[in-house]
């Protein structure tokens, strides 16, 4: 039950988060994918954190992808510095795929960096929203 609520609230938190500056992409918040790729470009600025990367698919072909995360200053307060990722790094990202199945875009939440560190890459944590909803419904 908690997982379901978390997932649904992830949709709420992240759909608005993606609209903080940009409603250009929309994601399937009820689906989660994990991708590993080699970074070609990393930007930690408005509208959001963006990672451009090459991923080798199941057919051995190299695909161009983009991962979008949280806002710059929010991430700086979450201990990001902007130096975590550089071109050529191989990183693993977990997040939600684009609703447009022709777009290689992922709404990234968790990243395993090249040095093995795990970073939360979004503005707001859906687990927090799930907890608040449960508390609200308990009416303590």
């Amino acid at each position, binding site marked *: 039950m908690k997982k*379901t*609520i978390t997932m*649904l*609230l992830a*949709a*709420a*938190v992240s*759909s*608005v988060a993606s*609209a*903080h*500056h*940009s*409603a*250009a*992409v929309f994601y399937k918040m009820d689906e989660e994918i994990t991708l590993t790729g080699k970074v070609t470009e990393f*930007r930690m*600025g*408005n*509208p959001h954190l*963006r990672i*451009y990367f090459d991923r080798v698919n199941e057919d051995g072909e190299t695909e*161009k992808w*983009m991962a979008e995360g949280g*806002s*710059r*200053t*929010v991430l*700086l*307060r979450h201990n990001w510095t902007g130096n975590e990722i550089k071109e050529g790094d191989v990183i693993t990202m977990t997040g939600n795929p684009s609703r447009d199945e022709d*777009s*290689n*875009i992922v709404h990234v939440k968790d990243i395993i960096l090249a040095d093995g560190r795990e970073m939360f890459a979004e*503005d*707001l*944590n859906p687990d*927090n*929203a799930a907890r*608040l*909803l449960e508390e*609200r*419904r308990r*009416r303590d």
Partner: protein
Amino acid sequence: MKLMKPRLAIVVAAMLPCLAAAQTGFEGVWSGAMTTPNDEHWKVEDITHCWAGCPLVPYQQLGAMLDDPANDELTWEELEGRYYGSMAQHLRSISTEAGLEILNGSTDANNPSIHCHDYGYMRQSLNPLPMAIINNGDHLTFKYEEWNQERTVYIDGRDFPANMQPSQFGYSIGHMDNGDLVIETRGIAADIYNPFSGGGGYSDQVVGMEHYSLSGNPPVLSVVMTLTDPVTLKEPYRFHKEWLSTPDLVLLEDSCVDVPGEF
């Protein structure tokens, strides 16, 4: 005419800035739900749908739905669907034909915020990142972390200038009303609402009234922003947002990177 003694004159001169900068109570650094998500003040609807301000009527409706045990069986997706439905219905019900035209034309393609075009009056006033309110005596400066922008609110009793040309944040005049800060803004350039507020936008005939109030200890800053616009709105459109006092927080440098067209 009796001249003031030099020493007294120096003391009085030194006091003048303090006298001029009478505190309003609203000075300080304020942070919304996005920056302080773990604070016990926030409700679920604040951190999911109102961290950058939200239309007041649908926000209140969502709160009422959450308070009603009859809705406990609804999934969040169903509640959210009703919220988005009520938000769209509300804006449509108060929009003129011109307002509906802007609303229907709101697309990702014409969203200026993905191209490093900074926010207009409404979006900037309710933006999700922290802000500082600084008292300069005759005016307040609202310093926003978002886009590193500043806005001036005159509090010296002046009137609006004649022949104002529309500008990004317009011309703001504030006054105190029973401890609340009331700001009227005119001469605002046309802009869009936050896309997640349902889209749409206002004309350069819009007038903004912001009613800021303080409550609690540590203090919570609340605003109700009321927009009236004879071109796009048949009735006033109200927004709500809250901030917490975060005196130790330092505003950070924001920066923008244009989104390339490939994605």
